[in-house]
């Protein structure tokens, strides 16, 4: 049987485990903590996190650019932003430790991750822009809700 040279450290080497089994349980505990935090946020829904941090900029090309670059802080509720970030953190540890991506070469890691990220971002952009356009059509035109 081949001896697997698994990397047994997480958090950039700050937390080391003795065996692969221990690492899996350790990552599971970490993911559980994140999930519990998410559930608590989802149930309490703090009022301060329900309104965007910033309001949109008005007037001119630079304002438009600022609105695009700062869009997560202008157009999103901070609570949703927190959920997205925590979900990505969870996805990272599931891929890196449960799927053993940590043990792959750097080139393979980048090929898998950046290809997926690019395609998913593109898909989301296209579909949400289109969805927003249809919303405007429903709102500003006399189109039945369930045509």
């Amino acid at each position, binding site marked *: *049987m*081949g001896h697997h040279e698994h990397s047994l450290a997480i958090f950039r080497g700050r937390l080391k485990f003795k065996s692969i089994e221990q690492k899996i349980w350790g990552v599971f505990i970490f993911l559980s903590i994140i999930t519990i935090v998410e559930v608590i946020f989802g149930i309490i829904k703090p009022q301060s996190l329900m309104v965007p941090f910033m309001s949109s900029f008005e007037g001119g090309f630079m304002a438009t650019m600022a609105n695009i670059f700062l869009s997560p802080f202008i157009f999103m509720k901070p609570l949703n932003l927190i959920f997205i970030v925590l979900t990505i953190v969870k996805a990272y540890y599931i891929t890196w430790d449960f799927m053993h991506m940590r043990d792959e070469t750097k080139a*393979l890691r980048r090929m898998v991750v950046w290809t*997926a990220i690019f395609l998913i971002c593109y*898909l989301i952009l296209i579909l949400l822009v289109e969805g927003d356009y249809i919303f405007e059509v429903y709102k500003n035109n006399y189109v039945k809700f369930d045509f």
Partner: protein
Amino acid sequence: METTVATTASQGGVWGGGNQPLRASYGKMMMWFFIVSDALTFSGFLAAYGFSRFKFVDAWPIADEVFTHFPFLHGVPAPMFYVAFMTFILIFSSVTMVLAVDAGHKMKQSKVAMYMFLTIIGGAIFVGSQAWEWATFIKGEYGAVETKGGKILQFLDTEGNRVAIGSFAESMHTTATVHEPSNGIWFMSGNDQTSYNFEEVKAGFLANDNLLIRTQYLDENGHPTVLSREGFYCKN
């Protein structure tokens, strides 16, 4: 296992499939191909969901008011608890799967069987939960009015509690019947007969001053808009 694959494969030489790009065996490489394509499939589902939400962004149901049920706890409001439970099931079954693979590498047969069994149980609970949620997703006992445009109007009392249509609609004599394909033009049929017709609901609404109408539209605080009765039309 990997070493066995590597030695067999390298016997074929570079052009015979013996090469190992990125130090990943053929099987592992194909597994990564599968994972990426699987991720893209589910991204397609989720992005389509986002598309639908963005189409109706001002009238989408609030998750807290939809996912309030927990199996065997009928009538107990538990917003999002079942969703949280399913998330844990999902994480736990991925843990048992990884442990099963690890035990397999160490040739521990009974451990593999146990972890695989737990994974299957977890998967069954998750899929079963999804089925249960879908089956009990929209189940109301209050009733509502659907407008010609497809919007839903619900009825509330002044405290904001739902009121069943059956409790205030006035019963009137009606001669309306469902148009079935067996009557008249054979290929045409009408809508289902509702428990109360529009005139009955309207009469009941006008007769009760303490009733309010709630629309699907969300106000600036993200709550469905409740229409005010301050106007001549409701004074009857």
